[in-house]
């Protein structure tokens, strides 16, 4: 039995729906109902055993259960219990409020297998309210053009939309075609996103003053050329570093991430105080060094199939 296997496996436990965790072609799959729905949407008719948060089952004498990770809709940590020993696999997680998914739940454990995507002390994500305010201010200052926001189609896009709504922005929000089904799926899971309009095929004049959400790959693409004087924004934790934003030709960087930042990663370690920590994808070296400085036993776990650096 594998967790988030990068190749088709007979039996797979899947933490969440992002493509580098949820691959297609597995035999049996266990995941939260939301994650199964996302996989079904992405890969067609894939079957699996739904595991609502808190539910579990037993296999080979190991008790397996799913707990909220706060990363995206349906994202879960997986708890493995055997002979009194508890192992948590966080998958991707964050500790902040997110209107589109259940909040992270701290689960006591002996071994913590943690992500470290933003495992460098330079990564501290600012409160999202300030970033949303920046976006709205840029729109106000550019009513003759539009703002196009690069955001991942699963999770980030819906979170940005939901946060715009929370900030009182109730005008229609324009979305790239690649996001429509996922937005519908969120709405069907009681995440209201308000009035969304497909941005494809509209006249430039119609989109003046609009906020447009598109996958990052569409930003520098011909698709974006049909927008009226767009300012290119990007919602990502990588935007914290100026040159990363510049390399992507981003004019309005929004530091919005669905991953734990450095403080969340280290605070979680201090809160759970596992006897041992395994660090998976991301900056394993820096978080490992921090553990050493805090006398926490840790080791890096190399995973295949994950980008070693920037989000792709």
């Amino acid at each position, binding site marked *: 039995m594998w967790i988030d296997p990068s190749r088709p496996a007979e039996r797979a436990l899947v933490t969440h729906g992002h493509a580098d965790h949820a691959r297609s072609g597995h035999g049996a799959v266990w995941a939260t109902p939301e994650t199964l729905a996302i996989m079904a949407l992405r890969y067609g008719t894939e079957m699996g055993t739904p595991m609502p948060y808190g539910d579990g089952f037993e296999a080979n004498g190991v008790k397996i259960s799913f707990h909220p990770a706060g990363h995206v809709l349906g994202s879960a940590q997986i708890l493995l219990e055997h002979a009194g020993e508890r192992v948590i696999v966080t998958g991707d997680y964050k500790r902040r409020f997110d209107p589109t998914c259940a909040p992270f739940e701290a689960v006591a454990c002996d071994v913590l297998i943690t992500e470290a995507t933003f495992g460098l002390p330079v990564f501290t994500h600012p409160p999202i309210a300030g970033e949303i305010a920046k976006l709205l201010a840029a729109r106000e200052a550019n009513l003759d053009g539009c703002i196009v926001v690069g955001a991942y189609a699963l999770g980030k896009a819906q979170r940005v939309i939901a946060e715009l709504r929370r900030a009182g922005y109730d005008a229609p929000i324009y979305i790239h075609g690649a996001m429509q089904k996922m937005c519908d799926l969120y709405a069907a899971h009681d995440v209201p996103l308000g009035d969304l309009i497909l941005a494809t095929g509209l006249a430039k004049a119609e989109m003046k003053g609009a906020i447009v959400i598109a996958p990052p790959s569409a930003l520098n693409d011909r698709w974006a050329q049909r927008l009226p004087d767009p300012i290119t924004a990007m919602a990502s934790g990588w935007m914290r570093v100026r040159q990363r934003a510049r390399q992507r030709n981003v004019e309005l960087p929004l530091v919005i991430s669905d991953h734990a930042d450095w403080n969340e990663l280290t605070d979680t370690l201090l809160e759970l105080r596992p006897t041992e920590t395994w660090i998976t994808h991301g900056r394993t*070296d*820096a978080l490992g060094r921090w553990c050493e400085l805090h006398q926490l036993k840790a080791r890096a776990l190399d995973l295949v199939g994950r980008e070693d650096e920037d989000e792709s």
Partner: protein
Amino acid sequence: MQAFSALIDGLIYTRSRDQKVRLIADYLRDTPDPDRGWALAALAGTLSIATVKSAAIRSMAEERFDPMLFRMSRDYVGDTAETVALMWPDVKADAAAPTVSEVIDLLNTASRARAPLLLAELMDRLDANGRYALLKLATGGMRVGISARLAKTAFGRAFGVSVDDVEEVWHALRLPYAELFAWGEGKSARPDPADSAFFRPFMLAHPLEDGNVDLEDFVAEWKWDGIRIQIASTGGETRLFSRGGDEVTAAFPEIAAAFTGIGVVDGELLVRGDVQGGEAASFNALQQRLGRKNVTAAMQAEYPVFVRLYDILFDGTQDLRSQSWSARRERLEYFAARLDTVRFDLSAIIAARDFDHLAEMRAGAREAAIEGVMLKRRDSPYLAGRKVGLWYKWKREPLVADCVMMYAQRGSGKRSSFYSDYTFGCWTPDGTLLPVGKAYSGFSDAELKWLDRFVRDNTVARFGPVREVEKSLVLEVAFDAVHESKRHKSGIAMRFPRISRLRRDKPADEADTIAALRAMIG
């Protein structure tokens, strides 16, 4: 400080030049003195705070943060100031953010020992963007894609004055440019530097691509391989300036002492020697004298410098720049005749019958180790900057060699996530590779991506930030010259190497040998 840090971030993320000019112009109009003057100096690269050096910032960081975590972060971010700004904790105190002039006054009057402490206190009063702007301001080197010229253009735009008028008096002004802003706002006349020895902008040349000029209209001179220098003297005071207007008088005191004329001249600083056509030493010799604050008598004796004069801008107080090159040349010859011949001579006019004859003479210039030929319109005035159609530089073709990539390192700034700095080598007779140079330019963005991938996929060892790669990739390297060097194990070093082509088709063992490179020493 908030307005300044917003300006800095705006400049970083804005791609359009025009938009950048607008951002700066708005800031200069809306910000009071003296903040805007300091900001203008920071953008134009004329601000220097002697008490804060980047080493001080590194040590401040290493004191506060675990050195290993700091190094990993610095390696990722690619910029020390930004790394420190991002790692610095947000201090929740409601302290008011400092103003730009408060920062400058505090740091400028502090002792070198106390400055880092003051800097840390200022950091505590700012958010991450403010801290970044503060560190950039304190260390100089804003790296926001703004040239001094663009900053002056923005000043011109803000107040509706011509950038050439700004340029003309710029180097005589004192920070924080109160007189300049007073003139811009129409409160006073343009500052008049009258009686001081200051820098006037150089006239520069365009490369002659594949054109042809008529020697009836153009005069030809050799392009000497030294450093371009301007000498300005009021009689009482003599100062030397390099290309960018930086004062270099202290590095070449014997030149300043020997200059007995009054006026402003333009020339090439060279070391006596027998390399360049038997008339001057190589650029390498001059390098021994560059960047030194104090020169010993022994240095002066070992590397005797002189100036080969190209042009005259002022004779006494008379401005000759609007006159033709021919008229200025006549004045220069008369002017130079009264100078010490040990330290000054005239750049000779090449006696070529016609352009073809000149081409033939230029082709022979490599053996003479001369960089190339300058072509100047006989009727051209002396104008600041690069003006089309007046002056051309006609460099000889670069040398090339096929080398093998050995090591790679990440770049900094815009390239901080890419392995963009490459060390390459050539073969010894016993079949080992020895490094002969390092290059980080000449390739396209697409090639950079490919090279970065190559480095990541072919790493055989890591030494801190340096990766050693499989010795399989041949790089065609172009360079201006090659000379003896004791610093390199191979015994040779290249001048201005850059990658001219990726030779993915060529097996590494067919790359050039050290001996082949040695044969190119001019």
